């Protein structure tokens, strides 16, 4: 039997989380970081193998009575999400090295939960079996819940409970659909099987397929999050530490858009086409509402989280207009948004840590006192508003271009999101960084970024810029996933009318 790379990849952080349950005291943080770095190394090895054409898929019967398999596999989209996850977690660990716990909830607990989150999230990106995916999809909630509830602002408990309740609503509704899939598979296919490939081959009745798909979609819409079920996100992001928010928005919420492509389109192509108009409207609402709410926010962390609501709107739009270009743009956006939000949350977090307040009005003239910090925030903001040269620009452009080829008016509305983005982005920078140095800035912001803080931001921002200028390699990896999704939908890209035709 070949070496089970994918199993090891996901189990490694979970083992790390268990190891951190031991009383390691001072050694805890280095050990935790070592596990995260080791996982990153394994993910790089997996990447090399995948690109070399090795078949990494694992398939073992898991629960025979349920038709569930321990089935892991990779495609282009899965690979980039795995890399994003394994890259962000060590970055977050370094950023949160001095995380202030409450009582026993010290850094050791934080690191353990971060590793648990990483392991469960990795398995959701790897699972080729619907039940296996569901199990880990739900399991990610528990470490995230403790990360929010154990570390952060004064109202963190409320935020944690709200986070969990919203996601459990989605999760339990998804459970009904997952059970329905089992029943369908058992009655239509004879032997029940949760394997994605087996389920996709079922002659799914139209009506039933739509109902089951709705269950899946509700879970993912809550998770993404999209307006109107986004309300848990701003509170959670405001109360959690910047590192937790990075993992929540950068990794956890991506599972939703990832799963829309892998499971909604993969299992229910007919129902996905049927629901597309609704999803397009919802994503437009999210784009505009998220941006508008970001403009109206005075709390920096809420502002950042609303920008994500807007960006998730773009990703979902890209998926549901069904062109190769836009779907690939969405996948690329998932990666870029991970870096972009990480940079924004972490840089703004450094700002807030110095000032002791997240209110946008408490700042002013920071660029004169802490130029490196200001520069980092600027780059992060420019990435959030998708300026050309930033990787987010490429993805947003692809989504809008793909949308334009399908329905120009939708693209036109989506494009207003970019203008609004410029407003909130520049407002954020202008209010906090420019202008005369206020008295409170003078008093509180006495230091610029130190070595460790730079070490956190440099790789993140570096990748943002790198992918902005060189999007090709990543896009080439994810292109097959987008093509497969189109094939599954039995759709072809709209052909632009040649000039002179008409």
């Amino acid at each position, binding site marked *: 039997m070949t070496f089970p790379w994918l199993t090891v990849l996901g189990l490694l952080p979970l083992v790390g989380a268990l190891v951190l349950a031991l009383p390691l005291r001072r050694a805890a943080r280095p050990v935790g970081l070592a596990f995260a770095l080791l996982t990153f190394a394994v993910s790089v090895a997996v990447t090399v193998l995948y690109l070399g054409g090795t078949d990494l898929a694992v398939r073992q019967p898991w629960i*025979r*009575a349920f038709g569930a398999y321990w089935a892991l596999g990779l495609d282009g989209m899965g690979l980039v999400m795995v890399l994003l996850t394994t890259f962000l977690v060590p970055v977050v660990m370094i950023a949160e090295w001095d995380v202030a716990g409450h009582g*026993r909830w010290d850094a050791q607990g934080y690191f353990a939960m971060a590793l648990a989150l990483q392991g469960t999230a990795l398995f959701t990106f790897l699972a080729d079996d619907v039940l296996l995916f569901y*199990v880990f999809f739900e399991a990610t909630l528990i470490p995230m819940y403790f990360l929010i509830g154990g570390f952060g602002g004064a109202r963190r408990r409320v935020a944690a409970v709200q986070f969990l309740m919203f996601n459990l609503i989605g999760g*339990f509704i998804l459970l009904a659909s*997952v059970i329905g899939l089992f*029943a369908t598979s*058992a009655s239509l296919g004879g032997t029940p099987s949760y394997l994605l490939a087996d389920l996709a081959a079922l002659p799914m009745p139209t009506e039933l397929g739509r109902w089951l798909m709705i269950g899946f979609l509700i879970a993912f819409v809550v998770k993404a999050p999209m307006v109107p079920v986004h309300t848990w996100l701003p509170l959670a992001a405001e109360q959690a530490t910047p590192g937790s928010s990075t993992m929540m928005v950068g990794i956890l919420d991506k599972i939703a858009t990832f799963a829309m492509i892998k499971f909604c389109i993969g299992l229910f192509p007919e129902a996905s086409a049927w629901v597309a108009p609704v999803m397009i409207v919802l994503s437009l609402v999210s784009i505009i509402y998220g941006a508008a709410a970001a403009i109206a926010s005075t709390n920096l962390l809420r502002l950042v989280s609303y920008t994500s609501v807007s960006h998730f709107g773009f990703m979902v739009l890209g998926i549901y207009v069904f062109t190769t270009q836009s779907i690939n743009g969405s996948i690329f956006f998932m990666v870029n948004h991970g870096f972009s939000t990480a940079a924004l949350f972490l840089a703004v977090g450094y700002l807030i840590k110095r000032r002791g307040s997240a209110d946008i009005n408490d700042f002013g003239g920071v660029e004169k006192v802490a130029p490196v910090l200001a520069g980092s925030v600027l780059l992060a903001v420019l990435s959030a508003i998708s300026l050309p040269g930033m990787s987010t620009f490429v993805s947003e452009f692809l989504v809008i271009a793909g949308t334009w080829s399908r329905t120009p008016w939708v693209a036109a509305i989506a494009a207003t999101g970019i203008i609004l983005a410029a407003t909130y982005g520049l407002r954020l920078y202008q209010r906090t960084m420019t202008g005369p140095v206020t008295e409170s800035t003078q008093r509180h912001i006495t230091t610029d970024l130190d070595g460790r803080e730079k070490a956190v931001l440099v790789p993140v921002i570096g990748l943002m810029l790198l992918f902005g200028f060189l999007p090709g390699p990543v896009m080439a990896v994810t292109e097959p996933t987008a093509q497969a999704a189109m094939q599954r939908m039995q759709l072809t890209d709209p052909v632009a009318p040649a000039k002179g035709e008409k």
Partner: protein
Amino acid sequence: MTVEWRAIAPVLLVLIAAILGILAEAVVPRAQRFFAQVFLTVASIVVAGVLLVTNWRAGLGGPVAMGSMMLDAPTYFMWGALLVFGLISILVFAERELNGGVSAFAASAATVPGSRAEAEASAARLEHTEVFPLALFALGGMMVFPASADLITMFVALEVLSLPLYLMCGMARRRRLLSQEAALKYFLLGAFSSAFFLFGVALLYGYAGSFDLSAIATAVQNPTMGSGVLYAGMGLLAVGLLFKVGVVPFHNWTPDVYMGAPTPVTGFMAICTKLAAVGATLRVFYVALSGERWSWQPLLAVLVVATMVVGAVWGLTQTDIKRTLAYSSIAHAGFIMTAVVGAYAGSPTSPLDSVGSALFYLVVYGLASVGAFAVITMVRNASGEANAIASWSGLGRTSPLLAGIFALFMLSFTGIPLTAGFIGKWAVFAAAWRGGFEWLVIVAVLLSLVAAVFYLRIIVVMFFGEPVDGVVVGRASAFTWLPIAVAAIGVAVLGVFPGPVLDLATAASTFLR
């Protein structure tokens, strides 16, 4: 006239040990009584378990004891589960370290609370060791109850299991008035429901001319008289059974009894009674009344919805942890019954049916229950157990291991994946769905969510609250830790590798008629 002594040896052994226990009360000196009783109890259950396994491997089965009991695959599974859960929950009875060297049971249950006699008994450090034979009697009754092949045996078993439970509920060492009130309530309501049961038995006898479940099934298939008597009998019989399961509207005793009874007894009742009652319900409805499933399925479905609503919604408003778990047990009775309502018989390629999934659910629910109640006995303040949820605040900081284990049980009750509870929920809901009750699954899923709120609230209080002064985690002996460890490991392992137990439950799901 033959009695298959070997086949029914596990039950006989438990009942004989109970009788020996009563004798031991009379002859063994007080100093050695406690040890003797614990030894007798544990040894008899273990030996009964060994006998059960050898009988099962020898392939013994069919009608036994002159056709009054049916030794089929579900019986084997339920006996095995009852012996395992009986053993680990009775172990908690033997805990003496937590309570300053005495057990959790009244020094002298016959004394009036607050009287001089009570104070004297207490000062003399007397202990009631009768609780062990009582528990064995109850366990014996519980084993016969779901194995009964006729309604009279079933009624006798019902009484054998109920009467000791009524007594045990009134034997708490602390808060005795509450305990006695619980016992009285349980007794009155229980007696009432037994009367319903008996009346139902009489009507069904009138309808079928026999007490035999299989004869009733035949009569249902080939009716010789109008179905009015059948429906009335069926309804009254159901009242008696559903009372023990804890299905709304026959659930009213649960919160008071769970709260008032000594916590080890609550743990014992929570799973063993439920196991026996669900087992008997399955047998009556699937063997005797399966021909009438079209008439009982919709009715039962309505009751199941009401049960889940009451359990989940009322559970939200509770401030006492034992009461919360009582409402939780009502909600879980509803979840189990979704599979029963589905009445799905399985297919050759996917054999997981209603009976198998209900049995599996009982096992995973039992593990978390036994463990949770054992943990509850350990969290104490100066006046005994600290049962207010508020006093559990900050437990995650003062004793992270215990709080972590309790959180695991709560997550299992909630049905979060990677715990056994999730697999159980999946199984019963899948059975209901395949039985054609898709809507019931959706309702059940939404109500699971409501129930999740109170489980998670306990976790919030434990982990994110400030510790309360005066609340400590008592130093317990292995009698408490062993059940907790078994339950925690069981919940975790069955959450990841449910296969063997699930296959066992699936294989044990066909009733002989």
